[in-house]
């Protein structure tokens, strides 16, 4: 086997095996940072040996066996260290004693629980959102630092440092390597879901940069979501989130035109929607609903996305049902952004005049001050009400607020269209005043 082939194969094996490897090791050493280092050591050993010996039949077991030896060494060293610390009168909490049995148990045990622990730890609220995202993509998604840096348009050292700091924070805060129970579990689960959805959204509507979307990041988020759904199948919101992401991702290839410019939902060619993802999304939504209980925020959003997915043509959309679902969502997790989305649905169901007061009421919201979607929606409503001059102004404001170049372009185009129509209307007004029969353009 050529060395480069072997390296590519090892990279692929690493992507498949490393999350479970790190998770299993973290249970032994009780520190995800140390676990990742040990796993990396095993990877280096593989890079040295496999090009000569070939990739073993069960590469996961090989990596785990190699890492296990290193974990035992590490535990011995830290035990010695611990004794020294104890002599100094310091208390350090490291699980000891039956290190060897722990290691063997990990090898035999179902690794799934460890993976779930790893996800909960990487998404721990003690970390900033950015840190959680980077750590989750790295440890659970098996992305390289370079890949994460590319996806989030930051430099590699920045990501590397973010990950190092995150691991240090977890160690310093003595975050236990466990799936929380009881009421804490719910709060922590929502932190996990938030991280996965944030990754998806960064791919779906890139907040900065030249591309409007980064589909690979959506795929990473979907993969993470599906892993989580396999590990925690009893949680309706997990299925709700996966359904939401699959339904939104089903529209990915219809969302951009030939020049990469965005195409909005109602203008999309629905024959280009991905029917496989729609089917999967609808099935996931069913699972979430069948698990019972009140629908959570992700399941509600998935139900809204399903209304779009089920409509063969844009004009078939059941906007009244969407408004009703938004009503429930506003009750459950009130936020100005949700209110704004609800206003859009109201405009579609009951006309722009019904929606404008709702949007106007949101203009006082501080949290929406820099949010481009608010003036963009308001601009659209004003345009539909033939108030083109105001619409032009709002769309220009929206364009100045967005950091995404493609989106800015789209908004400026729409503003220009309003400005033209505003000018037309003025001209017609003048003509209307001058024309003998006083006819005005409709």
């Amino acid at each position: 086997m050529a060395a480069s082939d072997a390296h590519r194969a090892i990279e692929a094996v690493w992507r498949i095996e490393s999350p479970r490897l790190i998770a299993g090791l973290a249970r032994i050493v009780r520190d995800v940072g140390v676990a990742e280092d040990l796993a990396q050591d095993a990877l280096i050993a593989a890079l040295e040996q496999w090009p000569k010996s070939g990739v073993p039949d069960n590469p996961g077991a090989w990596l785990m066996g190699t890492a296990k030896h290193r974990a035992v060494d590490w535990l011995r060293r830290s035990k010695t260290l611990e004794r020294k610390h104890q002599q100094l009168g310091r208390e350090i909490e490291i699980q000891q004693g039956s290190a060897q049995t722990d290691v063997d148990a990990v090898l035999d045990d179902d690794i799934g629980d460890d993976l779930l622990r790893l996800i909960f730890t990487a998404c721990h609220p003690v970390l900033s959102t950015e840190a959680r995202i980077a750590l989750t993509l790295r440890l659970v998604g098996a992305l390289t630092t370079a890949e994460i840096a590319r996806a989030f348009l930051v430099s590699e050292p920045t990501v590397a440092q973010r990950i190092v700091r995150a691991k240090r924070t977890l160690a310093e805060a003595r975050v236990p390597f466990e799936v929380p129970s009881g009421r804490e579990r719910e709060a922590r689960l929502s932190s996990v879901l938030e991280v996965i959805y944030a990754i998806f959204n960064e791919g779906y509507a890139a907040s900065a940069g030249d591309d409007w979307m980064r589909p690979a990041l959506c795929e990473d988020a979907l993969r993470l979501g599906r892993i989580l759904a396999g590990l925690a199948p009893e949680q309706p919101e997990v299925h709700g989130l996966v359904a939401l992401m699959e339904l939104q991702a089903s529209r990915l290839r219809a969302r951009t035109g030939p020049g990469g410019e965005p195409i909005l939902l109602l203008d999309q060619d629905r024959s280009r929607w991905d029917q496989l993802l729609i089917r999967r999304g609808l099935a996931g939504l069913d699972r979430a609903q069948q698990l019972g209980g009140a629908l959570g925020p992700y399941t509600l959003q998935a139900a809204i996305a399903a209304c779009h997915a089920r409509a063969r043509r844009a004009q078939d959309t059941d906007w009244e049902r969407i408004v009703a679902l938004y009503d429930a969502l506003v009750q459950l997790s009130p936020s100005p952004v949700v209110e704004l989305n609800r206003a859009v649905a109201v405009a579609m169901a009951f006309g722009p005049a019904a929606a404008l007061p709702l949007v106007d009421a949101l203009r006082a919201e501080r949290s929406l001050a820099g949010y481009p979607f608010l003036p963009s929606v308001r601009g659209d409503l004003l345009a539909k009400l033939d108030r083109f001059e105001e619409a032009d102004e709002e769309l220009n404001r929206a364009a100045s607020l967005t950091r995404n170049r493609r989106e800015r372009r789209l908004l400026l185009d729409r503003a220009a269209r309003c400005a033209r129509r505003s000018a037309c209307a003025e001209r017609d007004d003048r003509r209307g005043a001058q024309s003998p029969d006083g006819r005005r353009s409709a």
Partner: protein
Amino acid sequence: MRFMVLVKASEESEAGVMPSQEALAEMGKYNEELAEAGVMLAGEGLHPSSRGVRVRFPERKVIDGPFAETKELIAGFWLIQAKSLDEAIEWVKRAPMEQTELEIRQVFEPEDFGEEFTPELREQEERLRAQAADNQ
């Protein structure tokens, strides 16, 4: 990226011999592994070609199975999502198969269409523009 993994037919699959319970259990385990890793999008097994037909164009002539050249026939497929062909290969190597061949083919993504794809979309965009103009 998406890959379709094609399972080639064998004498047994063409004869309609159902896999043993053991083989089914192995396959179930493998499918579960794929699903739990968030990799599997779809997967199905197919009836033997004796229960299939071919429709030949341009005359649209319907030809009943079974078909010869067993090794070229398809007995099932998976649709998986992976980050690279290498990763797809690693997953496929783990399939609990004996005496068969699995073929991995990448599914077209919109960007693969390149030049071919643009005119149609351009036309569509122009249609939209025309509509917008009509509305004015």
